[in-house]
């Protein structure tokens, strides 16, 4: 793995720049370990009810899923940032052709580290009143 950013390097990055570096590692390459070890603080606060607080707990929860479900994909659709918060609206597919789920991840960034995470996930329904459900 590449050398970790120094504290001085982190201090120069905006929250959006931190998340822009986290996105390819996590959502695109699905390398949870590298994404988290590089950009997520060890004491990170987790609000997803499936995982405990802390970076290691998140890696332990996610990395096996990525390894077991090799066809799982995320597609980032929209990123909004303001102050310390960055929102990532993304489409999760478990296998090719899966309707999948719409997900919003909200990340709080402090001193170049992602320090807190919230998410909301909804499986995309089979039927929709409009032609463009969820995205």
């Amino acid at each position, binding site marked *: 793995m590449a050398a970790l950013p120094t504290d001085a390097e982190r201090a120069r990055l905006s929250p959006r720049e931190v998340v822009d570096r986290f996105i390819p590692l996590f959502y695109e390459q699905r390398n949870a370990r590298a994404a988290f070890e590089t950009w997520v603080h060890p004491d990170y606060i987790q*609000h*997803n009810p499936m995982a405990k607080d802390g970076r290691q707990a998140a890696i332990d929860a996610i990395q096996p899923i990525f390894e077991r479900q090799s066809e799982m994909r995320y597609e980032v659709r*929209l990123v*909004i940032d303001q*102050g310390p918060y960055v929102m990532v609206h993304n489409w999760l597919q478990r296998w090719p052709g899966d309707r999948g789920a719409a997900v919003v991840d909200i990340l709080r960034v402090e001193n170049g580290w992602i320090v807190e995470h*919230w998410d909301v*996930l909804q499986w995309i329904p089979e039927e929709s*009143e*409009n032609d463009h459900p*969820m995205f």
Partner: protein
Amino acid sequence: MAIRSAVAILALSVAAIPAQAAETPCKYTAKQVVEKFSQLFFIEKKPVEAYEQWVAPDYVQHNPIATDGRDAAIKALGPIFAANPDLKVDIKRIIGDEEHVAVHYHSVMKPGTPGFAAVDLFRVRDCRIVEHWDVIQPMPDKSANPHPMF
């Protein structure tokens, strides 16, 4: 002559009002528009006023239970508000840039029930909400951490 000019100016300005009003540049940021909408919609629970004031008639809807357009949204939401008079929405945070705004909130339809975590996502142009996405998840029964969802 002076009187005639004054009358002419008055007539001109009266005639100009509707056109001017239509061309008034939007003085609110996207986030301010969504804050005003959220206050009316989520807190004051006035869906018709909220939509008529802040949502474009041809707004694009991605929530799968509603068709496109402002009137369709009002029609879909009105009964939900009517059936849940105790509906309570607790807005946790609003995150916005120049165009897109996310509202992260906890909604409880009936007192004593755990309710839902949700994010509404809006696109705003010229002081009007023109597009909407949302993601809604029931609050979990159990959590691996002491602060689930919020």
